[in-house]
């Protein structure tokens, strides 16, 4: 099977350039200005943009254990719909991914039935309870790419130090969800103006910052690789910036929602504005955007976290934290940041592709002859309507529900086969 994609604006070496791409079987065979070859399938991509398949370092697939929210099939289909071809699955499933059997289960199921490559992140501590180090080395031999207790956070600094030392021993990066439980308390939204106004308990920025500060110190002292998940405050970013200037191996990711929305969104009591870390202030949002632009923040990750309607559509303080993000990520970012000129399309492309791949040493996410044909074709001139019917995730918990956003994923290719094809797209 061969596919020829003609005349697309192809993201190559940091720029968009008009190129043809020839795919043979699962690999990119050639990229050139004009390819005269015949192919089984020809796609005219004139006026469309072609990106390497997006990479998401932070996805909750809910499988095993909570498959009424999401599973590997629906989660990776949602990924394909959003232009993603690779994702990292967070270990807070039921059972927790703290053992090689569960690592195997996820990898095998994704391989057999999935529409995206799934890399597994193992738990940092057993059952992610924050009490004892998990069997990291065994899981590493089973293929995990990092360890994390995401959803929770190791509170004991001594244990965290040991996790850092042990993980580093086996070449595993650590992904940290920074949250001090005592400072966070029963917080519902950012501790600031809106929480004061609505009488909702606040999650103060400090709850994130004291852990970011602690873990940077612990990691730096041990020359460890530490990745800060969903960074959200100006001060956390400043600490990361300074650590990187000192040469520490600290990386970070930011979510689309922290780049676009602020605590003001919570005034609506829409539970799709409730997540951890919470939507922060405008100042924090601008700091995230600035740091993404200048590279202090390495990449964008969605923190895709499905919850069923019966859980999410209820009283604000009883609804669970988290929103879905795989399908909306590109359009939301393009619509709200790139189109108004606040972020370049090139930086967005990088932050969704090779930049995250480098953070966790995943295979390169770029368009190059010889590499797997993982790519996505997007029409920036069309809108996507995020109606419940159009969302492929099992859950519909997104703040962009029912909105129309610029940017439409027409095709996603994974190893040369189509994993998403927009009903309106035309193959000639």
């Amino acid at each position, binding site marked *: 099977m061969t596919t020829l994609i003609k005349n697309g604006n192809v993201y190559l070496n940091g720029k968009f350039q008009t190129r043809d791409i020839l795919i043979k079987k699962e690999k990119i065979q050639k990229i050139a200005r004009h390819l005269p070859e015949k192919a089984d399938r020809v796609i005219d991509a004139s006026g469309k943009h072609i990106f390497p398949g997006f990479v998401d370092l932070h996805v909750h697939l809910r499988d095993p254990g909570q498959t009424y929210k999401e599973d590997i099939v629906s989660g990776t289909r949602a990924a394909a719909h959003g232009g993603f071809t690779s994702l990292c699955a967070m270990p807070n499933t039921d059972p927790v991914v703290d053992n090689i059997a569960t690592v195997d289960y996820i990898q095998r199921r994704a391989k057999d039935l999935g529409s995206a490559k799934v890399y597994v992140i193992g738990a940092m501590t057993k059952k992610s309870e924050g009490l004892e180090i998990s069997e990291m080395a065994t899981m590493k031999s089973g293929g995990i790419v990092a360890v994390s207790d995401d959803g929770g956070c190791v509170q004991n600094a001594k244990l965290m130090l040991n996790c850092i030392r042990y993980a580093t021993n086996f070449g595993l990066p650590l992904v940290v969800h920074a949250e001090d439980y005592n400072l966070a308390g029963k917080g519902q939204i950012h*501790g600031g*103006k809106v*929480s*004061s*106004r609505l*009488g*909702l308990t606040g999650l103060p920025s400090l709850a994130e910052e004291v852990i970011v500060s602690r873990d940077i110190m612990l990691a730096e002292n041990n020359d460890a690789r530490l990745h800060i998940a969903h960074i959200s405050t100006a001060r956390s970013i400043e600490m990361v910036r300074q650590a990187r200037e000192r040469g520490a191996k600290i990386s970070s990711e930011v979510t689309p929602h922290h780049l676009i929305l602020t605590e003001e969104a919570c005034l609506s*009591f829409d539970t799709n504005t409730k997540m951890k870390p919470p939507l922060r202030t405008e100042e924090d949002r601008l700091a995230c955007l600035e740091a993404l632009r200048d590279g202090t923040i390495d990449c964008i990750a969605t923190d895709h976290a499905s919850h069923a309607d019966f859980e999410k559509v*209820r*009283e604000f303080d009883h609804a669970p934290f988290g929103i879905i993000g795989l399908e909306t990520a590109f359009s939301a970012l393009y619509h709200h940041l790139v189109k108004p000129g606040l972020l370049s399309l090139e930086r967005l492309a990088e932050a969704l592709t090779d930049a995250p791949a480098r953070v966790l040493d995943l295979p390169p996410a770029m368009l190059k002859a010889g590499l797997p044909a993982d790519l996505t074709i997007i029409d920036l001139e069309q809108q996507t309507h995020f109606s419940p019917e159009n969302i492929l995730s099992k859950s519909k918990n997104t703040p962009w529900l029912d909105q129309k956003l610029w940017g439409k994923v027409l095709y996603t290719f994974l190893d040369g086969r189509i994993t998403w094809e927009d009903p309106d797209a035309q193959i000639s």
Partner: protein
Amino acid sequence: MEATPQFLGRNMYGLEDYSADEIMYILEASKAMKEINLRQYKKIPTLRGKTVCTLFIEDSTRTRMSFELAAKRLSADVVSFAASISSLQKGESLQDTIYTLGAMGIDLYCIRHSSPGSPQLVHKYSQKPVINGGDGRHAHPTQALLDIFSIWEHVGNLKGLKVTIVGDILNSRVVRSNLIGMKKLGMDVTICGPRTLMPPNMDKLFGCRVQYELREALRDADIVMGLRMQFERMTEGLFPSLEEYSKHYALTQETIKFAKSDALIMHPGPMNRGIEILPEIADSKQSIIVEQVANGVAVRMALMFLILGGKL
């Protein structure tokens, strides 16, 4: 008096949705209702055939009684539903509860719930007007209306009045609603309490003054309102002991001297006599605490009357 169309079918989530003129209109209507409450036969047929539901997911006997009495005095039928949040979590959700109640033909809901924003949910599920009877620490607009009504009855002109509210600001929906209402009517509000019980940004958010020192806060006040201090705040580590709290923040004969000599004393109740307010202050001539309770029924009658479109 007739209910004007501008109130018909509206929700009362909080006073932010009502203009100063509209609030004044509600006060006028409350005055008319109060006259009814002073009659020997305290009932008018204006809402005959309508059904009001009190939906209390957080226990408050006095507020529920006030709403129910208000509905009954207007001749509405009353359905009351009370449950604890834990039972709601285990069994039927709020959504299911509203669908069930909706099948009984409810025209107006009065809800008390520990979750901020729950009145909006009730409206979303029922598509009927909702009066917020207190949602968590967010808002308690009928309490603010009755407080403002009580002041208005005594003082007349509200503009420029100096109000000082003292106590657990963090956990008080009464303060938030009063701040919005009083500010709209041109009153000058100071809030006071220990810093651990004072949420950030209150001055910027509500245009009020924030004071941590009681005597300073009370200086030249026309109105002084105490708030209930709950024992639980101590176990939450927000202050060390009721004795120490009382020493610094109680309304006593000594501290009240800093306010104007004829300052009105208020409290939304229930009171902890001897903790946030001393009995001699609560029972003094200047105290209008008992009147507040009576006015609560009148204000709630006025709202039901206006929202359901009654005629006098």
